[in-house]
């Protein structure tokens, strides 16, 4: 998880670079450049961490508060004056004013800190919260500067609240000359920040509360006027706010970086392509999510204890409901809508197919896209894709491979050179998507097929489970090569996907045996190889795949039959998962309760709502790496322990594409 966050942080930082143009100070950027552009939040993080536990002295907060309260009416005009020059781009003045206050820190820090903020929405954000938090009174002050700042911020980006904050910070610094001023500016900054997201606001509120409480405790705190006082005061305030943003202003660079570190996770979580699963046993969250939801989601009532955190909805009502809203979902692109419907109805299943269908839908979207006036393609399209993705998630949780694909797409969008015209940009995105499909899926499959087919020898008995498209290609290819082998297809209810595979293989003239998973231990002794597909491969070597795969792999292991997992590298994920409980998907409970076409065995038909009956239809399971002999990917055949390497390499390639 950590690694992933850190990694994510990187692209974000870069993104930020795009909007910055609004910000006047180039020098600042250069300074900040190294830290944020490379976004080694990690590298800086240690420092940040050391600072972070800043439980230092809440009391100072109090002092600040007091001071600023007392002074607040006066400084207002001043601060506003300061601010104005800043947005204007008169950097020097600001710096000068700032330096004295932060003299302890040294000249460089002040510069860097503003710059860093500018560069990174996130950084700025963090720093800012501390400020506003101090002053409740600042609101009036905010009115003046607020307007001007807002304008700039709006231009730069609607999406990132962070930007709003940046301007705020700058004024603050200017204000720092006098501690009072500073406090005031902080207060003023606060209103600006008010535009932040809910979570941030809440954090802010909490921090303020804490600060107040502290203030009461330590009413003695003086308006620390000296620069030192100001510097220290900042950290203090931050401490309370710590959750959100721990930023000791004292070491501006470190602090800013640290903020970057702390912040990104939170923000990223929002943006993250497959957002971390919501915990569905958290009622508040579920309620909120429901309000947003496009698809009508009625929670199923009887859920298995262990899996309450996973979404489980009443099936049956969703599809008609979504259908009836066909024309009401105005912003939804028809292609996306169609794919969503197909996910929901189960018309498309299988990792590759779902991913391809989604990408093709996005291609349609991009083709039909035109940038609304006053918006930039990069931003707007990213937001749009994000909204489509959340729609698709409502229809069915995304697989990790789709998450990777989305991440790729967003990355491509974010990295579009600004110089491209709209049509060129669209063109390039479409071809990027095509390239992804062709290289990561189609070509990868071909390579995998070549590799794996070399493992098929005459006289082999190959066992496969369910229906994996790569495994199917391998079998067909090996058959084309003229190898003599037999296939055992193991299947399971309720999907019986193996039957479709069986049908196709038999049609091509392969010798097949078909059995259900109940009999896997009986059939295993005659098997010489097991080929399995995967939904994704995690960096601890765990294979996340259709439920039942683990069982087959374990039986094979017990019989000392080699287990080969065939999986394209785009399905690799840096996540680590130890069991199939914490992250999984629940299918329709009715599917296992009912035996289709057999009225005589539908014993549980009317029991669906019985309190003491809970149905569990798990969709995936996790196979530990001990049971896997080899993973066949487009990078070759690797032991499961080498997955992290592929993940790392693949990611790099990802970035360079």
């Amino acid at each position, binding site marked *: 998880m950590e690694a992933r966050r850190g990694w994510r942080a990187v692209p974000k930082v870069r993104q930020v670079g795009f909007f910055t143009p609004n910000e006047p100070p180039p020098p600042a950027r250069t300074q900040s450049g190294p830290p944020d552009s490379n976004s080694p939040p990690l590298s800086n993080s240690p420092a940040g961490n050391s600072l972070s536990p800043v439980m230092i002295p809440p009391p100072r907060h109090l002092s600040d508060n007091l001071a600023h309260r007392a002074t607040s009416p006066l400084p207002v005009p001043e601060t506003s004056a300061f601010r104005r020059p800043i947005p204007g781009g008169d950097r020097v003045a600001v710096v000068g004013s700032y330096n004295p206050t932060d003299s302890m820190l040294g000249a460089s820090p002040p510069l860097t800190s503003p710059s860093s903020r500018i560069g990174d929405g996130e950084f700025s954000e963090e720093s800012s919260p501390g400020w506003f938090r101090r002053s409740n009174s600042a609101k009036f002050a905010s009115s003046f500067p607020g307007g001007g700042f807002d304008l700039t911020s709006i231009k730069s980006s609607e999406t990132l609240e962070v930007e709003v904050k940046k301007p705020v910070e700058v004024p603050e610094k200017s204000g720092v000359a006098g501690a009072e001023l500073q406090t005031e500016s902080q207060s003023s900054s606060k209103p600006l920040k008010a535009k932040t997201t809910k979570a941030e606001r809440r954090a802010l509120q909490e921090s303020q509360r804490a600060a107040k409480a502290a203030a009461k405790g330590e009413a003695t705190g003086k308006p620390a006027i000296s620069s030192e006082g100001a510097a220290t005061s900042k950290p203090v305030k931050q401490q309370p706010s710590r959750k959100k943003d721990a930023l000791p202003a004292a070491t501006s660079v470190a602090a800013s970086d640290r903020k970057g570190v702390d912040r990104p996770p939170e923000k990223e979580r929002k943006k993250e392509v497959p957002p971390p699963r919501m915990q569905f046993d958290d009622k508040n969250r579920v309620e909120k999510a429901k309000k947003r939801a496009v698809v009508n989601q009625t929670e199923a009532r009887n859920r298995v204890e262990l899996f309450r955190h996973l979404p489980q909805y009443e099936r049956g009502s969703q599809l008609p409901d979504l259908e009836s809203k066909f*024309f009401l979902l105005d912003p939804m692109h028809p292609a996306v809508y169609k794919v969503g419907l197909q996910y929901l*109805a189960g018309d498309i299943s299988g990792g590759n197919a779902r991913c391809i269908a989604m990408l093709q839908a996005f291609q349609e979207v991009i083709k039909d896209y035109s940038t609304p006036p006053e918006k930039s393609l990069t931003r707007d399209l990213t937001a749009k894709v994000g909204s489509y993705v959340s729609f698709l998630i409502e229809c069915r949780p995304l697989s990790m491979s789709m998450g990777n694909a989305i991440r790729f797409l967003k990355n491509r969008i974010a990295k579009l050179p600004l110089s491209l015209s709209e049509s060129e940009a669209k063109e390039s995105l479409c071809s990027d998507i095509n390239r992804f499909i062709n290289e990561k899926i189609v070509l990868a499959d071909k390579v995998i097929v070549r590799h794996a087919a070399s493992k098929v020898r005459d006289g082999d008995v190959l066992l496969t489970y369910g229906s994996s498209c790569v495994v199917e290609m391998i079998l067909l290819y090996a058959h084309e090569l003229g190898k003599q082998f037999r296939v055992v297809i193991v299947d399971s209810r309720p999907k019986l996907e193996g039957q479709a595979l069986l049908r196709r293989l038999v049609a091509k003239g392969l010798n097949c045996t078909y059995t259900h998973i109940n009999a896997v231990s009986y059939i295993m002794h005659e098997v010489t190889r097991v080929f399995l597909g995967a939904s994704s491969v995690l960096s601890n070597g765990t294979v996340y795949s259709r439920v039942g795969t683990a069982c087959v792999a374990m039986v094979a292991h017990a019989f000392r039959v080699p287990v080969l997992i065939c999986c394209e590298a785009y399905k690799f994920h840096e996540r680590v998962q130890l069991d199939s409980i914490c992250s999984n998907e629940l299918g329709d409970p009715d599917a296992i309760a009912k035996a289709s076409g057999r009225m005589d065995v539908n014993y549980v038909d009317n029991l669906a709502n019985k309190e003491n009956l809970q149905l569990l239809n798990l969709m995936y399971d996790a196979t530990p790496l001990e049971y896997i002999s080899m993973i066949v990917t487009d990078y070759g055949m690797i032991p499961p322990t080498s997955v992290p390497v592929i993940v790392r390499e693949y990611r790099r390639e990802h970035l360079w594409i």
Partner: protein
Amino acid sequence: MDFQVVVLAGGTTKKLVPLVSKEVPKALLPVANRPVLSYVLEQLELSNLKDLIVVVEGQDAALLVGAWISGAYVDRLHVEVAAVPEDVGTAGALRAIAHHLTAKDILVVTGDLVSDVPPGAVAAAHRRHDAVVTTMLCSAPVGGPAESGSSAGKDKIKKPRRYNIIGLDPAKQFLLHIATGAEVEKDIRIQKSILRAVGQMEIRTDLMDAHMYAFKRSVLQKILEEKDNFQSLKQDVLPYLVRSQLRSEMLLNGVSQAEEKGNVKVGSQDNHVVVSQILANASTQSFHELYASGHNGSASVRRIHKCCAYIASNNKYCARLNSIQAFSDINRDVIGEANHLSGYSFSTCNNIIHPSAQLGSKTTVGPHCMLGEGSQMGDKCSVKRSVIGRHCRIGSNVKVVNSVIMNHVTIGDGCSIQGSVICSNVHLQERVGLKDCQVGAGFVVTAGCEYKGESLARKEK
């Protein structure tokens, strides 16, 4: 969503004489004192479909409908009213406006549909299966009204109820067979190829074609162009498409695949094959695809297209105003069990009496009744399950049961009206007894007459 909506509002159908006349085309027949067309338009508006084409048969009718629409929906809907010659049939009407159609799919709704089934559902089913045509089926109304002697039993009025014979696949998603109208009387002929491909067919007669279709535009235009003898969507176009779904002459597959390939044009053709293969293998296939790929020996892929059905659930109201019987049924339902459709709020007594209506002493208005604005009723009247329009004057001692009385009707004392429809400006003199009658606009019934099951109208001059 790339849908275009065409409302076929019809003209002055013979079936509804004497209710319809030159002044009141079918689309403007009042249902609970609102033109029937408004029910469709509002349902569409609810679905955020605001650009509509309303096709009316006959210039005069078009003018009337256009005037009403522009008055009622002036800033809510963007409606284009198109007039087509009379008696061209539904297919003919579409043919006439075919050049206006540009969107990918066309939603065709009949103007006499009173329903709360969201049109989006049909459209979504259509898109989901990428069908050529999707039709909405609803359960056919059960016989005549159970109670109230208005069986409307006269052959003159009531034609033999037509049932559709509809064949569905086991999942109830695809339309395999449809016989409508006169064909119903004949033997059922089902194509072997379809039956063989599906394996199982469910034949139902309890479903009614609600005349809400989603068509793929390219196909619709092509059919209309090529088969110029097709008159009716329901009786010609739809059965044709259903019949030919496994040997499509529409070149649909070819076209659509070519389009798709055009879109995805990058890399080698080979890759596309693989991609489409992956998609095809992973998606649940309808019998169409299985059939098309089943005989993979033959080089050419069979051309197929899909005809889908959307079956409205039973708790939705869905009826067509296509007969006099239906007219009274719908009126009764809209103020009765399906009153959410009417858009009025009902009083605690379950009826609607406009505040400006005046009731004499000892006059009772029962539940499921509606009294329009400015109507006056004398003493000792009783109204049950009836709709009374605007500005009617009703004398004393009048009984109105199960009837529809339109606007500006004058009813003398002592009349008894049961199960009848009385159009605008009719004058009933004293002590008239009407049972199961229809009285055309402007007719004057002389005092003391008793009619049963007749249709009264002025002679057309």
